[in-house]
């Protein structure tokens, strides 16, 4: 605990107080209603990873400036939107530059917001007393995605209109009361003109206003709670020089200005190297020849919906599952309620987060490479299941390394040696551990391959059974696939049991396979 942060708040420890006072204290400690503002920040906050959210705000400011300049020329009607955008490109001084910088800073804002989210997830910034900050930050993330969704339509190109129609199709696949409400909210009751006007209003008035209100609330809470202490994973205490408090102005402010300047320069250079060109104007005739595809930040969702199991009748199920992911992310502070913030103590959550990031990346790239193609179930199971299993394996091995580092650093794990049949990390057993680790990793890879193949075969057999009816060949295939799944799960469970990750040791040895492993 340092002075710059406020993890232990007096308002929160109110024994003997009435329920109303405790409730008021809870809100005060979370929302920071009674704290002084613009306090000095600790030295450890001078780190780019602490400023990802601030850089997203810088991107928002750049978008505001360039957006206002484009607003001077843009007319939000289907007959003039494309022409006025083209006018900016061709006839306005620095027009292409404006449009390009606006688009790339929008992309950067979304990417920075995602990085900010995942960094916060991995270092557990959502824990007490920053739960409300997390929820507000998630809402800001949704608004950022809303900016992307609404802004993409405005040029009225074949690419943007088709992508927006894909997004609206997703919304319309939701259950009727929700879908009709959202559809009315987003596109109104009219046709293209109403849709474009709504998107324009949302993009330039409503969403910026919401974002500014949320930003103000988050900044207020940041000032109240201070920045969270770094989590190294080794639980070693921070050196005093890192805890030293430095003034907001000029030290912290100038650091932010430096980051903002470098970020701005990077955006300018990217705009020079990859200038934007305007695709053809939207028309119903042209749309029929074009394969619709959302922009990259929605590709992962689109790719999930392209899996054949989620076609038509399965679509609401997929959308509900995706909604559930977002709901879980918003409510994370109330789900992951453990006290510890160290990465080594949160192996389940860290692994889940790593799997999520990997799956999103894989789905996005895969979606980019397969526009408009329906993905067979077995292929989806193989790719997604394989990714998840490989990341889990990598996480387990990484955790072993961190645990080894933790023990070498003199932390609280048990000393080397121990009872018969147990090999611990470090000391004279290092060679044995390496040998065992190689065999374990090899076994995991084989099990991953067996598991993914079996899962995909099982799904394939179930689909074949549903479509073509029961036959002995399909039934045999299903039984064999399920046996393979069981074998893979049992083998993986056994290996995990042997690894005994929480205690950084290996429990048993199997001489037949693990050659060179001596006690």
């Amino acid at each position, binding site marked *: 605990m340092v002075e710059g942060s406020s993890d232990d708040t007096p308002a929160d420890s109110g024994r003997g107080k009435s329920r109303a006072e405790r409730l008021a204290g809870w809100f005060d400690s979370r929302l920071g209603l009674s704290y002084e503002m613009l306090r000095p920040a600790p030295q450890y906050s001078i780190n780019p990873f602490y400023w990802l959210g601030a850089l997203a705000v810088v991107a928002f400011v750049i978008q505001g400036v360039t957006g206002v300049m484009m607003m001077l020329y843009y007319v939000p009607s289907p007959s003039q939107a494309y022409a006025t955008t083209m006018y900016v490109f061709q006839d306005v*001084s620095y027009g292409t530059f404006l449009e390009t910088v606006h688009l790339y800073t929008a992309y950067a804002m979304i990417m920075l917001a995602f990085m900010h989210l995942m960094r916060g997830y991995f270092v557990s910034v959502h824990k007490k007393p920053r739960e409300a900050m997390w929820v507000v930050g998630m809402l800001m993330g949704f608004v950022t995605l809303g900016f992307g969704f609404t802004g993409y339509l405005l040029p009225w190109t074949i690419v943007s209109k088709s992508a927006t129609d894909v997004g609206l199709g997703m919304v319309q696949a939701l259950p009727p009361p929700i879908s009709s409400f959202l559809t009315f909210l987003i596109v109104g009751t009219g046709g293209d003109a109403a849709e474009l006007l709504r998107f324009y209003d949302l993009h330039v008035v409503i969403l910026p206003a919401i974002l500014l209100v949320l930003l103000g609330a988050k900044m207020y809470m940041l000032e109240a709670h201070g920045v969270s202490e770094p989590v190294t994973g080794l639980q070693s205490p921070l050196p005093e020089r890192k805890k030293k408090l430095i003034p907001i102005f*000029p030290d912290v402010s*100038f*650091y932010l200005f*430096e980051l903002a300047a*470098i970020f701005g*320069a990077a955006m*300018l250079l990217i705009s*020079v190297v990859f200038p934007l060109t305007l695709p053809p104007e939207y028309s119903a005739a042209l749309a029929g020849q074009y394969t619709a595809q959302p922009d990259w930040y929605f590709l992962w969702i689109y790719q999930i919906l392209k899996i054949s199991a989620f076609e038509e009748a399965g679509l609401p199920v997929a959308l509900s599952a995706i909604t559930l992911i977002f709901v879980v992310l918003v409510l994370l502070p109330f789900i992951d309620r453990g006290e510890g913030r160290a990465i080594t103590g949160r192996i389940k959550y860290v692994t889940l987060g790593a799997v999520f990031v990997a799956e999103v990346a894989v789905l996005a790239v895969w979606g980019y490479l397969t526009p408009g193609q329906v993905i067979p179930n077995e292929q989806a199971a193989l790719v997604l299941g394989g990714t998840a299993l490989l990341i889990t394996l990598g996480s387990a091995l990484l955790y072993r390394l961190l645990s080894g580092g933790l023990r070498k650093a003199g932390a609280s794990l048990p000393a080397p040696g121990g009872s018969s049949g147990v090999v611990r990390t470090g000391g004279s057993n290092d060679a044995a551990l390496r040998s065992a680790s190689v065999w374990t990793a090899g076994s995991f890879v084989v099990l991953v391959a067996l598991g993914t193949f079996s899962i995909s075969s099982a799904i394939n057999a179930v689909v074949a059974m549903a479509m073509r009816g029961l036959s002995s060949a399909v039934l045999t295939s299903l039984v064999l696939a399920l046996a393979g799944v069981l074998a893979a799960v049992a083998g993986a469970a056994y290996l995990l049991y042997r690894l005994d990750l929480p205690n950084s040791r290996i429990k048993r040895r199997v001489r037949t396979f693990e050659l060179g492993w001596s006690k």
Partner: protein
Amino acid sequence: MTGEESPTYEPAFERLGTRIVALLLLLEVLSVYFLWVLNPVGPHAEDAFALSLAASLVCFAMISYIYRALKRDNRFGRAPLIAGCCFVVTLLMVGIAL
């Protein structure tokens, strides 16, 4: 900052920092002047504008870094600053050439 306040005080760093800041200010003025006289309807005007503005921003970031470094402990990495100066000069030269 005095030597009594910081045990790592080295006059050489302060002198070097001052020289680099002077050079960066000169480059900053040059980039602003170039932005001012740039013909906005000329060919590649947008690229030249972006490069010059980027050079100006990098100059500002480096000046701010030197200020913070000298204020904190009188130390900064020489190689990144020299590389940064070369980068700024390159940006400006490409911008002017365009």
